[in-house]
């Protein structure tokens, strides 16, 4: 008996390893349960490596651009100066409009509070199994990041929200293109409500719009409604790209998100509902 066990020692180890992982898997079913402590430990152990890689590559890139690759810098500088000029004008107009709601000091305080609650971050890793599902960003608990905070791109378009595991310096963002993500949205033109989920292939699907509904068209702007109590209202999500009527109750509506995967490098975590400030 002992001899046969010794002979099959290797197979027993393999079986034990598979069994251990099956137990791990079974703990997570049904899906979307809490992340295990083991997963949190592994992510905390290896994310700093990615953090380091991104920091080094950023530094190299910055130095390269700053000292060596200076082609087109002059043109870029002129374009940026122009953009700054228009943004300053826009900023002045908006500040003047805000003054209608309160005195200068109060507006300044609210604006400062707003700046404090926008946390710029960088993507340090994308989902290994499907890059349309999630990304890992370089801000975590130490920066005040909490579960369900929303994440937008540099133009203010919705990208996703923070989910667990959140480590000390890193956090995971579930993208709106993930098929298990749900966002309550409405069409800007006719205020038709629906639920937006990802298709896992880079696009989104607008669900629960009845086939009898005729007030939704291609090109309609989709915004968050705020009814899900995770995403604040009126954040740009995407636009309708195709509408198909089916034999069932609901239409098949495809929505192209506004954020661009190629520009997913820099993001911002919004810590509070910014509209509550004004």
């Amino acid at each position, binding site marked *: 008996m002992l001899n046969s066990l010794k002979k099959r020692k*290797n197979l027993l*180890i393999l079986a034990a390893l598979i069994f251990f*992982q099956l137990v791990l898997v079974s703990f997570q079913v049904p899906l979307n349960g809490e992340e295990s402590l083991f997963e949190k430990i592994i992510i905390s152990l290896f994310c700093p490596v990615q953090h380091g890689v*991104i920091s080094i*590559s950023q530094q190299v890139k910055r130095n390269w651009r700053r000292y060596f690759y200076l082609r087109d810098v002059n043109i870029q500088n002129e374009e940026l100066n122009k953009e700054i000029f228009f943004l300053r004008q826009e900023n002045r107009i908006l500040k003047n409009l805000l003054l209608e709601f309160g005195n200068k000091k109060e507006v300044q305080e609210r604006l400062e509070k707003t700046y404090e609650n926008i946390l710029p971050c960088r993507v340090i890793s994308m989902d290994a199994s499907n890059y349309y599902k999630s990304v890992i960003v370089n801000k975590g608990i130490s920066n005040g990041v909490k579960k369900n905070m929303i994440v937008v791109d540099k133009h203010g378009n919705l990208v996703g929200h923070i989910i667990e595991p959140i480590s000390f310096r890193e956090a995971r963002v579930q993208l709106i293109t993930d098929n298990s993500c749900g966002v309550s949205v409405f069409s800007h033109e006719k205020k038709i409500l629906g639920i937006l989920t990802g298709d896992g292939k880079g696009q989104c699907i607008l669900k629960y719009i009845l086939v009898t509904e005729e007030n939704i068209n291609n090109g309609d702007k989709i915004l968050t409604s705020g009814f899900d109590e995770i995403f604040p209202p009126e954040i740009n999500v995407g636009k309708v790209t195709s509408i198909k009527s089916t034999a069932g109750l609901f239409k098949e509506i495809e929505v192209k998100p506004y954020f661009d995967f190629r520009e997913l490098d820099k993001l911002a975590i919004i810590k509070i509902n910014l509209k509550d400030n004004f």
Partner: protein
Amino acid sequence: MKNFIKPFFAIIIAVVIYSVFFKFSIILPQIINVFSLVVIYFALIKGEVFGACLGAFCGLVQDSFSLGVFGVAGIAKTITGFLAGYISKRIDVGPFVRNFLFIFILICLELTLWSFLYFFIFSERINTKNGLIFLQPLVTGLLGSTLFHLIQIIQKKEKY
């Protein structure tokens, strides 16, 4: 303890390469599975048990970088690591072409296992990223066999 230092550093290097790949292009991580190369390399050197253990750990590291069920890639990589060590004890996979075929078949098997488990748990097919993922065995096989061959040459030179 000494036995674990090299594999641990290899995993760290795999994480670094994985991050660098993502920084350059989102295509590269889909066609080159660096974690599997680490598992196969150490399974070839240290045998099936070590391959299985390292496969389990590497798989879990890979799973921690993705949203979903933690352990799916772990199971696929455990079996891959075990088979890599088991087969290499019985067949000489040293020559370049044989080494390429060996890695190619193992990655195919790993992908099949992973997609089967994914389908079993999520009830949906894996995202093939416009068929890119099917290039993974070929590219990883080519890269792996070239790397292993280079390591062999360097080690031989060091001996003499």
